[in-house]
């Protein structure tokens, strides 16, 4: 059986982000990690809506916003493609920021300060704990090192 779409997009109904934002983030992630390259086509709205069982308007909205952000371009009648000049570095930083924001929200929920969170991320990634959470936490740490955006 052929793969349903060319991009792995996963969304969660109970995620705090609206579905169109989750789709945008997933496409961004695919671009950042190299799953999608310049001029690669995105799945059609219909394909993606059908495979995710989401409202096609939601997919269209995600694609429109990605186009506005300059990450994709539309060729009428042919579909949506990844912009070759998409700034992967900037997007990588943005992705890191979003991961950090999520971690921070979680920390706040547990009554931890940003400093406590950063300190424990350092401790864990400097050879402590290891394990599955290790890599995600290292990424979450990035925005505090590269401060250009804040």
């Amino acid at each position: 059986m052929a793969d349903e779409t060319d991009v792995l997009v996963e969304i969660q109904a109970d995620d705090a982000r609206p579905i169109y934002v989750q789709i945008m983030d997933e496409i961004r992630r695919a671009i950042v990690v190299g799953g999608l390259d310049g001029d690669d086509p995105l799945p059609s709205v219909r394909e993606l809506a059908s495979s995710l069982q989401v409202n096609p308007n939601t997919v269209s909205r995600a694609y429109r916003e990605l186009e506005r952000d300059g990450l994709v371009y539309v060729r009428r009648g042919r579909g949506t493609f990844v912009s070759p000049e998409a700034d992967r570095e900037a997007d990588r930083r943005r992705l890191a920021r979003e991961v950090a924001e999520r971690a921070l929200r979680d920390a706040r929920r547990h009554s931890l300060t940003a400093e406590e969170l950063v300190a424990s991320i350092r401790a864990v990634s400097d050879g402590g704990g290891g394990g599955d959470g290790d890599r995600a936490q290292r990424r979450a740490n990035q925005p505090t090192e590269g401060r250009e955006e804040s």
Partner: protein
Amino acid sequence: MIRPTMPVRLDVESPVVETTGLVKRFGETAALSGLDLQVPEGAVYVLVGPNGAGKTTALRVLLDLLRPDAGRAELFGMEPRERPGEVRARIGYVPERQDFHYGWIRVRDLIDHHARYHPRWDPGYAGDLIEELEVPTDRKYARLSKGQARRVQLVLALAHRPPLLLLDEPTDGLDPVGKKKVLGLVADHLASTPTTVLVSTHLVYEAERLGDHLGVMKEGRLTAQLPREKLRDRMHRYLLRTPDGRDPVEGADLEVLQRKRAGRELQLTVWGERSDVVGRLEQAGAEVREASPLSLEESALALLGADERSAARTRREPTAAEV
């Protein structure tokens, strides 16, 4: 803490479906008691409510399968009572119960029979749907399981590409794989055919990814009717800590739908502008740890619960809508 005033009217011009003060009684029981429903063109409108809230009755009135005792129903600007044929030709309907007056007919013949009544029947599309849904066309309709009958009804509802779909518990009786397939097919259908959908369900999480409007029905009328975006915007769940043990809600001007307390932690579902709500809570001495939007299902549950409580509290003083 005050009773939430939820929007019950959509601000849309010429909705595809509109009912005004619809009333339907069965003997002493009022199944519909003043239903004002508005389904905008192109919407996927999710109608929720407990069993017996009147959802199925409402759909049946729209199809002219039931005559209302009072009020008006309009579809595409036409009254189903006056122009039942024209209205039904524009609708694809998946009924809640299987109707057995087709009884012993073979599925293939049932589909052919249906196709003859619909000038816009798309045989190619019907074939695709039959294949995709693995519809057993050689079997007799009455012999099908509930899930198989559902799949047949979906073919009948979709293959003439009607501008309006009325789906009454469309995934009822389907296994998880079947549900996923059906929801995927509906999404695919919406992408290829401009369609307005009114779906009645008690499994709101299934409509989570498709629904863009929510109607909450209780005792024959709507207690909330609003776009999904508005829910995201104005309904949030707040996690708070109350260091001095004071109740920040008491006396505060907040529209609270749900509250749960565990020790000094309080979880509130509040209707209102987020920054405004956070401000009021902090002013009342609470630490706001988290403020997050709710899923469609959580929203529906909060609205159903809130309605129950406020209805109980205001039983002696009916609101303007009730009198």
